[in-house]
């Protein structure tokens, strides 16, 4: 569905070149929910922007359904971390969700139905007439998710969408993403710096190295499909997986690409 092949991105500054992404290859199958996790400042956002066609990669390519991505493709929706700056404050919630559909040239009836359905499924059916800034941060991010849903994408890219909301709202939103993924069968690529979030959400976790970024490790999350905040997080398998990801990230920070042997610095958790 989504293939990243030998992706490389170099920023040319004034007399200074920064290699943000060195050589990335991975793929996401149709209907999969994959989490990308990596140490902070590891070029996750750069990667995502290259994948969505917002940035042109220096080398390599991104393929969506076998077609090369050169600009934002219509089958892809993006949920930004900065929900407050991604929703247009001069439009009501409903208008925000509807705007991309208008651009698709959809008939009014169909737009209405899609907007109502999307808002309904994020639990904001009553908020269509409100302005985004009248809502809490978590609700604003729900609107952004609703906008993405209404767009009917094949692939949904989410760039640390819950980094700026409080812990409880975050748990609710994580469950929302799981539910929507299962209900709608969308392919989701979820970027985060939170290890627990990555393991809890993903069917697969791709661990990235520090910048310049390569893939450190990929691991399959063999937790049951049915997950909930209380039970899943206390399962032994969950703990094992998060330890594994944690080790890989620590290894990534140290700069060793190989798998780290044993449990390093047990009990020292800084994340």
């Amino acid at each position, binding site marked *: 569905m989504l293939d990243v092949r030998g992706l490389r991105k170099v920023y040319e500054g004034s007399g200074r070149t920064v290699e943000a992404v060195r050589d990335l290859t991975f793929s996401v199958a149709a209907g999969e929910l994959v989490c990308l996790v990596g140490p902070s400042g590891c070029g996750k956002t750069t990667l995502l922007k290259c994948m969505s066609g*917002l940035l042109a990669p220096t080398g390599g390519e991104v393929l969506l359904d076998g077609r090369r991505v050169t600009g934002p493709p219509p089958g*892809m929706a993006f949920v930004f971390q900065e929900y407050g700056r991604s929703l*247009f404050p*001069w439009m009501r919630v409903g208008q925000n969700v509807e*705007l*991309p559909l208008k651009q698709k040239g959809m008939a009014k009836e169909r737009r209405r139905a899609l907007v109502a359905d999307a808002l309904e499924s994020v639990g904001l059916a009553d908020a269509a007439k409100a302005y985004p800034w009248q809502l809490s941060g978590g609700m604003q991010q729900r609107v952004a998710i609703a906008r993405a849903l209404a767009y009917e994408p094949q692939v949904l890219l989410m760039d640390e969408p819950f980094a700026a909301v409080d812990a409880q709202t975050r748990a609710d939103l994580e469950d929302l993403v799981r539910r929507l993924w299962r209900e709608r069968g969308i392919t989701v690529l979820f970027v985060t710096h939170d290890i627990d979030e990555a393991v809890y959400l993903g069917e697969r976790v791709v661990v990235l190295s520090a910048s310049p970024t390569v893939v450190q490790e990929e691991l399959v999350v063999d937790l049951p499909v049915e997950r909930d905040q209380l039970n899943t997080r206390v399962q032994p398998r969950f703990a094992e997986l998060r330890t594994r990801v944690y080790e890989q990230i620590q290894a990534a920070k140290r700069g060793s690409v190989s798998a780290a042997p044993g449990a390093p610095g047990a009990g020292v958790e800084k994340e």
Partner: protein
Amino acid sequence: MNGTFRVLRRLLFVVALPAVLLTVWWFASAGSTDVYWPPLETIVAAFPEVWDGERIRADLLPSLWRLLSGYALAAVVGVALGTLIGSYRTVRAFCEPVLEFLRAVPPPVLVPVIMLFAGIGDGMKIVVIAVGCVWPILLNTVEGVRAVDPVMTETARCYGVGGAARLRHLVLPSASPQIFAGLRQSLSIGIILMVISEMFAASNGLGFAIVQFQRGFAIPGMWTGILVLGLLGFLLSVVFQLVERRVLSWYHGLRDSSRRSP
């Protein structure tokens, strides 16, 4: 009860000082024999005589027509050019020094220049007003367009909002608070230019009428003219605020909500 009290208290604050000032003026000027400072009573008495329907039609309406057409012209040109210049970095760098200079020219000196081209008719006045008003609108639009949030720009790109829709749904609304700041500055410049262009060369209009009164030593008439100008300035500013409140209601709401929870 408490609510009524608060409304009354507010009302008192609004009318108290103006009432005091008017009373002081009324009594201080009563029986004044100074030709330049006639009693307020005389001015008030002269008002309905001077500003009858005939004069409103002959002087006030032409002035308003010139002001509004010049202002509207400046708004259209300023926003259009400003959006163009603000959207492209190279265009902006290219135009910047020239714009900085043109904006710094005190607008009233345009009156004699534009008289050369456009004579002394209505056209001249409208052009003078437009040319003087255009700079604050233009420069503020440039700033506003330049400051469009990069996340919003990327959002628009991701969701296929481009071309005219991008302009209409993203760039212009995002720049609108700045555009309104420019429109507001321009409104006062427009009134100044309307009066001056009429004082310079006209056969009717508010500026013309006031200068006629002054030259003819019709002092109470002149005072009523000053009052009409003051009222006009005040009323236009009120109308402007009402429009701004309406158009930018989202902006004020956004600002208030971010002030409450920083």
